[in-house]
């Protein structure tokens, strides 16, 4: 990963290919929302004439879009499995890990239901939400619950992690399992309760330029930028760990 910092000069690389205006579309996991908005803006700043459009959704939904031939240039997934399926289909190659993330329990500010840990997810009284099973945060959240030996009493399976976070933030749910970075992004509206390391599951985020990209050079440069020191600093400021 450190080696890739050498490529941390995408600005030079691009200015060498001329001043052509170019737009790339980045499909990124919902949990990357804030970080990738900033990464896109920073990349635009260092590459005049280039614009980055980021579209966020559950990684599984993005995978389906890519496999259905959606025009896009870069895919950043919240788990290796969705990326692997894209690679197997020949739509991308040589993904690199861009970040790591951990799970945390999100509760509305002040923790009105008095949630103490995963064990409370078995209680039928509090309103509990998880991500849907097909979504990375849903799969990982269920793994963590299984690790803790808890059978949850679920009230809703949200289509992606941001939808789940929004409901916790609004106080409509008493608790949900999201990423550490989501709790951080919600600021004061949400409190985070740590999941003990022995139950916790780490999420690895792979990124790759897509084979059908019509702007392959810019796409590769954006991937390199995300993996560069500057990109990693931005990701760290949103709570992501270095893979």
């Amino acid at each position: 990963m450190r080696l890739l910092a050498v490529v941390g000069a995408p600005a030079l690389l691009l200015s060498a290919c001329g001043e052509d205006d170019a737009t790339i579309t980045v499909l990124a996991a919902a949990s990357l929302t804030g970080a990738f908005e900033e990464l896109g803006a920073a990349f635009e700043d260092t590459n005049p004439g280039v614009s980055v459009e980021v579209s966020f959704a559950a990684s599984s939904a993005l995978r389906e879009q890519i496999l259905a031939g959606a025009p896009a240039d870069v895919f950043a997934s919240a788990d290796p499995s969705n990326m692997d399926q894209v690679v197997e289909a020949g739509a991308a190659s040589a993904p690199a890990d861009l970040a790591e993330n951990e799970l945390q329990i999100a509760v509305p500010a002040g923790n009105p239901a008095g949630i103490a840990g995963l064990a409370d997810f078995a209680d039928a009284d509090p309103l509990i939400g998880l991500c849907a099973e097909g979504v990375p945060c849903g799969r990982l959240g269920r793994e963590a619950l299984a690790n803790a030996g808890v059978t949850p009493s679920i009230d809703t399976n949200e289509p992606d992690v941001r939808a789940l976070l929004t409901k916790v933030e609004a106080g409509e749910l008493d608790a949900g399992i999201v990423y550490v970075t989501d709790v951080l992004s919600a600021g004061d509206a949400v409190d985070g309760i740590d999941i003990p390391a022995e139950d916790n599951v780490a999420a690895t985020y792979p990124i790759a330029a897509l084979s059908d990209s019509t702007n392959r050079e810019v796409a590769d440069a954006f991937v390199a930028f995300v993996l560069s020191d500057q990109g990693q600093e931005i990701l760290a400021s949103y709570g992501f760990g270095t893979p």
Partner: protein
Amino acid sequence: MSQRPTGPRRAPQGRTPWPVIPLAAVAVAYVAFPLAALLQRVPWSDLGSLLSRPLVTDALRLSVTTACAATGLSLLVGVPLAWVLARTHLPGRSLVRALVILPMVLPPVVGGAALLFAFGRRGLLGGPVYDSTGFLLPFSVWGVIAANTFVAMPFLVLTVESGLRAADARYEDAAATLGASRWMIFRRVTVPNAAPAIIAGAVLCWARALGEFGATVTFAGNLQGRTQTMPLAVFLTLESDREAALALSLMLIVVSLAVLVPMRDRWLASVP
């Protein structure tokens, strides 16, 4: 009743202006082609076992019951509202009509968020109700019905209002001169006269409720057997279990067509 041909209206002199037919064919093809493309992916041979899975049967049962409940609620308050819009001259009528139609054009997700702010656990009305009774609309079947009603009712109100406008109000005047009370006129003259429009409105409302997705997932959440309607099940299985999603889509199309096809031309004759 106004005099109106019950069959299809004829083009002048029985001739069709030449560009009309091909353009109309394009319109039909534009809708039919994607649906045909979807059908071509349906796993026909496994259909039986796919459709008998609990995921599918739970979603079907929930969708049909909540769509019926939403249509019932819409009839109860929507027909009176349509009457007010069609028969009175209240100031601000246009504003009321625009307001009631708004859910038709708004992204349903916005409707779902608005419902949360009103009837959610921390909502303007939902908050006090929850604190005093513990009753909660979100994450329950009642939440699904609420979301369906919010989004589907405008279809009923608009259709019935046009029906009432097209109906001859002199029958009501006649009933009044014969001494009928206003409520009796409404029940025995107005509603029967507008029956075709009410049926058409109810069918459209039911079909729209059946397909409701955005407001439901935002307001009521998603849990199999409790709040996971067919559209939610399609959306969530499209990524993980495409065959089940396609079977569900087929089911939605068949059920919707089954209620839309029998709609008579004359039911819609009064609809602008």
